[in-house]
Structure formats: C-alpha cells, structure tokens
C-alpha cells in the first residue's frame, strides 16, 4: 500500500529524519493554523498518489497568506481528487540528494540506492546516467552496518557535518523500512539547505499489504482510488479496476487475467472493468456480478481455471447471481478446473453455453459488443 507524502513524512519524523515544518489540512478554513506551523513563504502540496504532481500543477508556492488561500482553494477545487493538502515551509535548497531502500528479489536483501542528483525520478536517472546511482545490498536480518552507511555517504560525495547527518538519515530510513515492512522507502529529494541542514523534502513509502496482520492502521481510504466504485469493491474485498471499454471481465489469477486482457486487445476488443473472481471470492458470485454490472459492460466475460476454487461452486454461484440480478447483458463463460464437467451441466441448465477455450470465449465476447 502506497502512503501519501504526509504519511511518509510522519514515519520519517518518528524515526528521526528531519522533515520540513508543516501541517496537513482538509479544507481552506484550516489553512491559517497550518501557516502558523509552516510560516511564509510556503509550499502547498496536494496529497495524491499519482506521480508528476509538479507538472500537473498540484504543487504550488505562496509568498503571502492571501496567495496561499487562493491557491489552496484552487487545489481543492481541481478535478484531481485532492482531499488533503500538506502546507509546508519553503526550503532554502542548496543541493538535492536521492536516497531509497527497496527490495532486491534476486539476493533476498534490501537494496539501498543513492544519488547526488536528487529531485529527478530515479527511473529516468537509471536510464540516462546509471553510473550516478550508488547501490548497496543489506542483509535485513543483520541490519545496516556503519560501513554501509559510510560507503553511501562517500559515494554521495558528502563530508563533515552533512556526512554525519546523511548517515543518521539512512540508518533511520533503514529502520523504518524494516519496522514497517516497507516495499519502498524513498526520500527524494533529500535537501541540503543553505544553512547546512539535511531535510527530507519529499518522500515515498509503500507498505507490504501481506504484512498488514502485523502493521497497525494499514487502511486504504477513498483517496487511494481513482473512483468510488474501485474503493467500494476494495472495501468489499474485491480487487477491481475500472476502464472505459465494453467487456466486464471476471477472471481468476494474474496470469490468466493478463492473458485474457492481452487477447481482448489483440482481437480488437476493450475492457470495461476487471474483477478478481479467484481466491476466496469464487464463492461470492452475487456480489462479484453486482460490482461487474456497475462497470456498465456490454457483455460479461468470465474466464477461470480453478483448483481449490472449484468450477462447480463458481457455476452454482453464477446461477444464483443471474437468478437474483437478472443481468440484461449477455454472459460468456470459460469456467474450467476441478469439477468442470459438473460446472458445465449447471451452466447449460441456466441457458449458457459453457466454453472451454479461452480464445474462443474472448472472441465470442468481442463479437457481442459490436
């Protein structure tokens, strides 16, 4: 789960990484209080998860309280779904660094990355000047050692007081990475100010969903999603994506879903929405179909190959869902796997033509959209 900038900075602050003075507001009325914390000039930072906030105009500077008020109102009124704004002191930037910790799946270690050229997206730097990224792998059971901190600081070309501050920042970031089950902990830019302070001016932090049982307060809010529908589905336990096409896709498993998605594109179709019908959801056909129908598809395409998720249970659930919801759009199924023969019998009984071949099913669905 990706955190918002203000949440990442809360974690930074807790662990001892300096962050700019600032406060989060949810409406313009709270601005005055926030300015008391941030001072002027200030930065108004829309708390959205999408990248490129600067280019999209979602980060604004203000020199006066009046300017701040106007710009805050504009941001809240923008069509980008701005629910919160972080009001922060404007920094006197002398130098921008990059510091991040992520997972190296090959070695099973944490991968520390740093660059003396902060402020840009690391992916772009990785392409344009990979030699400017310093990498270091750290054993997560052992933890980060002083020499690893030093190696990074020497690599960043730091010395004196900033060397020490940098070591402290990286050590704290590593502790946060481990303690919070992070997939990514990034400070970008890590700013060196004119008066020699090191401050995390912006940050990304992503926490592993699979660790939610030991990470308190991991909860997605509406602001994490692009639409109400996706948020509601997630609250109900259904991975759900909304697109703007024709086919309502109920699929089980990443590999098969992505394949069906590819095939729809290959055969000239488009997807209205995707709902994950696998895992524990295979017993929840009524709800699943409800969410799918809310995506306004011209046809519903159901493609599964279940083992533990038995085909006959799915088919029986679909029969109930159709009985109850009486969908007005046609339904194409390729429901295979454990007890697929029984599933086929059930589906035929309710008037469907159970298919076995995925490509055939995709083509049939596309044909119905024309």
């Amino acid at each position, binding site marked *: 789960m990706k955190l918002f900038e203000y949440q990442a900075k809360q974690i930074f602050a807790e662990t001892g990484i300096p962050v700019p003075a600032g406060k989060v507001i949810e409406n313009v009325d709270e601005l005055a209080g926030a300015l008391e914390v941030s001072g002027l000039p200030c930065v108004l930072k829309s708390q959205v998860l999408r990248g490129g906030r600067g280019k999209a105009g979602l980060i604004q500077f203000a020199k006066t309280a009046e300017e701040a008020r106007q710009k805050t109102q504009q941001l809240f009124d923008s069509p980008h779904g701005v629910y919160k704004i972080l009001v922060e002191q404007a920094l006197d930037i002398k130098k921008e660094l990059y510091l991040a910790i992520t997972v190296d799946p090959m070695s099973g270690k944490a991968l520390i990355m740093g660059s003396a050229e902060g402020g840009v997206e690391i992916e772009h730097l990785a392409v344009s000047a990979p030699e400017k990224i310093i990498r270091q792998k750290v054993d997560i059971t052992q933890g980060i050692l002083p020499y690893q901190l030093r190696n990074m600081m020497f690599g960043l070309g730091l010395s004196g007081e900033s060397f020490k501050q940098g070591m402290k920042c990286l050590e704290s970031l590593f502790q946060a990475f481990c303690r919070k089950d992070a997939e990514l902990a990034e400070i970008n830019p890590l700013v060196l100010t004119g008066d020699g302070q090191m401050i995390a001016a912006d940050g990304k932090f992503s926490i592993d969903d699979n660790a939610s049982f030991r990470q308190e307060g991991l909860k997605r809010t509406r602001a994490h999603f692009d639409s109400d529908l996706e948020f509601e589905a997630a609250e109900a336990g259904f991975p759900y994506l909304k697109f703007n096409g024709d086919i309502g896709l109920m699929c089980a498993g990443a590999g098969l879903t992505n394949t069906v998605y590819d095939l729809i594109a*290959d055969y000239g179709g488009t997807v209205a929405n995707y709902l994950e019908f696998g895992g524990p959801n295979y017993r929840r056909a009524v709800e699943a179909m409800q969410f799918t129908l809310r995506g306004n598809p011209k046809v519903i395409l159901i493609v599964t190959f279940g083992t533990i998720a038995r085909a006959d249970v799915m088919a029986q659930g679909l029969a109930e869902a159709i009985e109850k919801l009486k969908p007005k759009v046609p339904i194409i199924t390729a429901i295979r796997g454990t007890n697929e023969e029984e599933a086929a019998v059930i589906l035929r009984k309710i008037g469907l033509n159970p298919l076995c071949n995925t490509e055939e099913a995709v083509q049939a669905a596309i044909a119905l959209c024309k």
Partner: protein
Amino acid sequence: MSIFIDAKTCVLVQGITGSEGAFWTKHMKDLGTAVVAGVTPGKNGQSVEGIRVYDTVKQAVIETGAEASVLFVPPRFARDAIFEALDAGIRKVVVTADGIPVHDAMEIRAAALALDAKVIGGNTTGVITPGVAMMGFLPYWIDRVYKPGRVGVMTRSGSLTNEATAMMVAAGYGVSSLIGIGGDAVPLTRFAEMLPLFQADPATDAVLLIGELGGTMEEEVAEALEAGIFTKPLVAFVAGRNAPEGKKMGHAGAIVSGGKGTVKGKAAALRAAGALVADKPSQIGALFETVFPIKK
C-alpha cells in the same frame, strides 16, 4: 525420470491436518507420491489419510527420513515453517501459501541461497511429474493439461499454467515435469535456477516457460540461454503485454512500474537468446512443432 522429486522421494506435509492439507495429501498419495509424514504442532500421534502426524519437523525427519516438504500453512506462518524444515535438514520445500510478507520472503530467499536449498513458491500450486509424484495442489487428473510427455514446464502462474499447457497438449505434446515457481514479487526460487534441473533431466527434451509481466526472471532465463546453461529448445509465453502500467491485476509479482518488467522487453530478450516466444497461448503448439516436431 523426473526433476525435483520422484516416486522415491520421502515427502512431508506441514499443516497436514488442515482441510487443504488433508485433501491434497490424499491426492498426492493417489498419484504415487511417497508421503511419509505430516506435521501439525500439538497433533503428534494423529493420522491423516493413513499418514502419521508429528509435533515437529525434526521428529518427523528422524523417524521417517523425510527429505522434502510441502507446506499447507497460512502465509504468516510460512517463515517459521520453512526455517523449521531447513533446520531439520530438508533442502526441498514447496510453499503454497499465498501472501507471504515480502520481508519474510527476503529472509527466506537469502537463507535458501546460503544453504543451497530449493524452496519453491510462495503462492505456487506446486511441482509435479505426471504419473510419478506431486508436491502441491495440481489437478493432475485433468488429462488435457497433465498428459505425461517430454516437455518440462515452468511457470509463475497457476491459472495460466493450465491454459498454456493445455495448448501444448492439444498439439500432441506432454509434460515431463512441471514446476510452479509461484507468483510472488520475491519468489523463493527463480526461473533460471530451475534450468539446470531441466537441462540434466534425460526425460525432458524441451521447456515451456510461462511468464508474466513484472520483475526480471524472464530476462534471467535469456541470460542463462546466452551463457549456454540451458541448451534444449525453449518456448515461452509471457502474459501482460497490454497491462496498464502501475495497475495490479492479480498477484504481487505481476506489475510493471517505472517502465521495468515489460513483456515487450522480456520477449525481446528471450528471442535474442534463441527462445521462441508465443504471443497467444494458441501459438504454443505450433512453435513446438518448429523446434521439436512430434515423431509420428
């Protein structure tokens, strides 16, 4: 012949008394797998499908000589169960749990590398040599997928395996051994690490690689081909050519972010290394025909 396990490999089932553990123990036995013991703490002395249950893996290994373990335990307990198996000397582990925390997976992966242990998964349906032995929950009775033959299969996706393998079988080929390495972002064993097993297996004439967007595992296979580590024909199908960047459809490993892990890049790398890459599952059979025609 087979890879990973054969009919003589003594297999332990951790979490045997759970409903999935018990159900698939029966199926593993039915296929011919030498399931010799189960472990569920606190249930020592019980019996599941005729298999004796022990409190600890150590005890089970001492008394039955178990040398491989398949885990039917919830993801939050996977770390503990895997280290219990490794500590008891087991070096082949299949981890079905879907949702192992990434930090646990890092720790397990690093330990497995250090011990030279093959820990397969997490989030895998398992490993099978059709007609011989299985660790996991593969519906081997579905003949249009699990027909015995001479093509090794390795895959990141349970759902897609059946799809892609069925295409190969429809073209007249069969499966020598199938390894599901699982769909996690940090797979405990990686594709390229399985290649030497398929290379060494005289029962395998070619390999079908079922890949996905995300990560670098397909690229590592391409490197292994370039390095001559694997010299048999390899046909690949990689799902997710059109997947929207940054959106997750399914499990954690299958995501493109920051422009890395695209299917386009994977397919290009594989082709450059001499592999054949199918764009659609239905092309898989035809590609095998070009490199490894069936003797009629």
